[in-house]
């Protein structure tokens, strides 16, 4: 089956006064039609820049996609002219932004904003697009949608606004939706509702989905596959179930350890990952996570590992770590029972 989206060796860089920020540094992945993918990582690891690069929305200058290919439906997005890219944006690829409070224009009515893509891409006139807008708003669960068409964003709550954003994204039946932290700005009860809505709609319309988040809990129930990003690179790729059952990168372990769990006894504290993500201007020569890794050895700071298949795991499970590769010193380590972490924690105390 041909892939819907193929990203090959994507490099996005920002040219600032302090130097070149290598925000996305050689990212490759594929996505089939109707598939859902989660991209996980902490702030500043290149998740959002990856998403913006896919739609060529990187502000230019200072940003530039310096290398790579983005094949959408077989066409290279990076080789398109501006009109062609605009024809894709909002039409075949749509985006949902993080903060519904600021991503709706405060002085335009809801109907005008939702119908924008309809008018631009489907050439609908005012009456048609209003009718379709009502349908879309009902689809995303806005009660008495018809009477709220001419309301302004400030008359909607945060959750409702995010629903409007989803309606906007769905308006042209896109093949791919990029959701950049769609629930981060919402409170927890609303988060669950919005995630449910996204999941159901994606399934119903067979829309492929890339969900970008820093919260592993959010992607757990949502996506088929997860890519973990760190320092502008993908450090681990796996099926969602496999990633949670059998993670193979110390960074993923760190992320999982810092999630509070309900199903375990409260004998231990949460273990955050110490330190900060690497400076993307001056990257270390070896593994990007080495500075914060409790398992590092000399090789980690000298040579950068490749993203390769991992022993003791499913075939399509890949990780970028010297320790968990074939012959590495972490192959048989189970992060849940491993005591190295506790040992270092004790030594610190």
């Amino acid at each position, binding site marked *: 089956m041909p892939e819907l989206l193929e990203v090959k060796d994507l490099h996005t860089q920002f040219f600032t006064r302090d130097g070149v920020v290598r925000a996305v540094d050689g990212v490759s992945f594929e996505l089939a039609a109707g598939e859902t993918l989660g991209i996980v990582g902490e702030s500043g690891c290149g998740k959002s820049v990856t998403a913006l690069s896919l*739609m060529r*929305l990187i502000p230019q200058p200072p940003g530039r996609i310096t290398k790579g290919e983005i094949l959408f439906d077989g066409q290279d997005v990076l080789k398109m002219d501006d009109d062609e890219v*605009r*024809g*894709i*944006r*909002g*039409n075949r690829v*749509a*985006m949902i*932004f*993080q*903060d519904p409070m*600021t*991503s*709706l*224009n*405060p*002085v*335009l*009515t809801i109907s005008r904003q939702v119908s*924008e*893509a309809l008018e*631009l*891409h489907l050439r609908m006139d005012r009456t048609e697009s209003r009718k379709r807008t009502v349908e879309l708003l009902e689809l995303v669960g806005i*009660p*008495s949608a018809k*009477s709220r068409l*001419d*309301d*302004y964003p*400030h*008359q909607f709550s945060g959750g409702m606004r995010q629903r409007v*954003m989803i309606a*906007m994204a769905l308006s042209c039946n896109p093949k791919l939706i990029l959701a950049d932290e769609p629930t981060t700005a919402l409170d927890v009860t609303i988060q669950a509702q919005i995630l449910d809505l996204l999941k159901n709609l994606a399934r119903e319309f067979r829309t492929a989905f890339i969900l970008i988040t820093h919260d592993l809990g959010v992607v757990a129930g949502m996506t088929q596959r997860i890519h973990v990003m760190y320092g502008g690179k993908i450090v681990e790729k796996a099926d969602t179930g496999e990633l949670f059952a059998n993670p193979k990168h110390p960074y993923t372990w760190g992320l999982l350890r810092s999630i509070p769990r309900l199903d375990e006894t409260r004998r231990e504290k949460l273990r955050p990952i110490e330190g900060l993500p690497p400076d993307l201007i001056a990257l270390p020569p070896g593994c990007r996570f080495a500075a914060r890794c409790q398992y590092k050895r000399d090789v980690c700071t000298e040579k950068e590992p490749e993203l390769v298949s991992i022993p003791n795991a499913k075939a399509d499970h890949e990780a970028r770590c010297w320790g968990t590769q074939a012959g590495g010193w972490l192959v048989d380590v189970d992060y849940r029972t491993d005591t190295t972490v506790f040992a270092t924690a004790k030594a610190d105390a």
Partner: protein
Amino acid sequence: MATLSAASASQQHAADVNVLVRRQRSLWGDALYRLKRNRAAMAGLAVVLVAAVLAILAPVIAPYDPIRQDTPNSLMEPFWGNPKFTLQQYPLGSDQLGRDILSRLIWSARISLVVGFVPVTLVFLIGATVGMAAGFYGRWVDNLLMRLVDVIYAFPDLLFLIIIMATLRGTILGNLLGGLVLMFVAIAVVGWVGMARLVRGQVLSLKEKEFVEAARATGATNRRIMFRHLFPNTLAPIIVSVAFGVPSAILAEATLSFLGIGIKPPTPTWGVMINEGFVVFSTTPWPVLLPAFCISLVMLAFTFLGDGLRDALDPRQRAR
């Protein structure tokens, strides 16, 4: 009892269809509501409206032709003056050529309001376009346009106006409509820079907002983003600036006409009347005081209205 149950039934109905029982207000409706509660602004608006009606209906309302001379009855005083020097047919007196001051004041309102609004419209068109382009495109476009703005801004307004009016008065442009067209152009050329700066500043901050990125992600073109997404967001400060621009244009006209390089006599304007009345000021002050009073009143009215609009459109700035 019956009404009670009916009321509860309608409430029940409202709850059923999930309609919020409240008054819907749009952004502009809200602003209008606040403006209406501002007494000073409403008084200002009333004065402006009266002046506008007088100006439009001048040919009907004015008792005499404003340039009809009645030399035997020159320099009459208003009706509250010395009865020896008043005439019933000229309730506000006459000037040194025997022209009816009341008629001249009414006709002058025409010029003043036109001079108030036409240049401000030009200022808005030029300033908003330049400001939008500079703010949105940035880089060399911004640099080029803003350096031009700086050059004009560095010049004292009045000096610039005087230079334009004095040098171009004799040309064809200066003679169109008794100098009115040149006046429009001069005030617009001097005034657009402020508007351009205002709009540029607004656009600079607005274009970084997420909704612009969202619009781009839906495939909107630059032009669409500028006109449909950014422009309506800049409208509130623009309206306020226009409201303050009108009185300053009126004042500029009066100043230039008073200096004798504005509207050419015999076309009556308040500035021209002050200029002409000045020579007889020691005999009777009224030919000067009455038009001066009109200018002050209209300026005050527009300023109140502008203040009210500012408070109404941006309630956060109001210190209370």
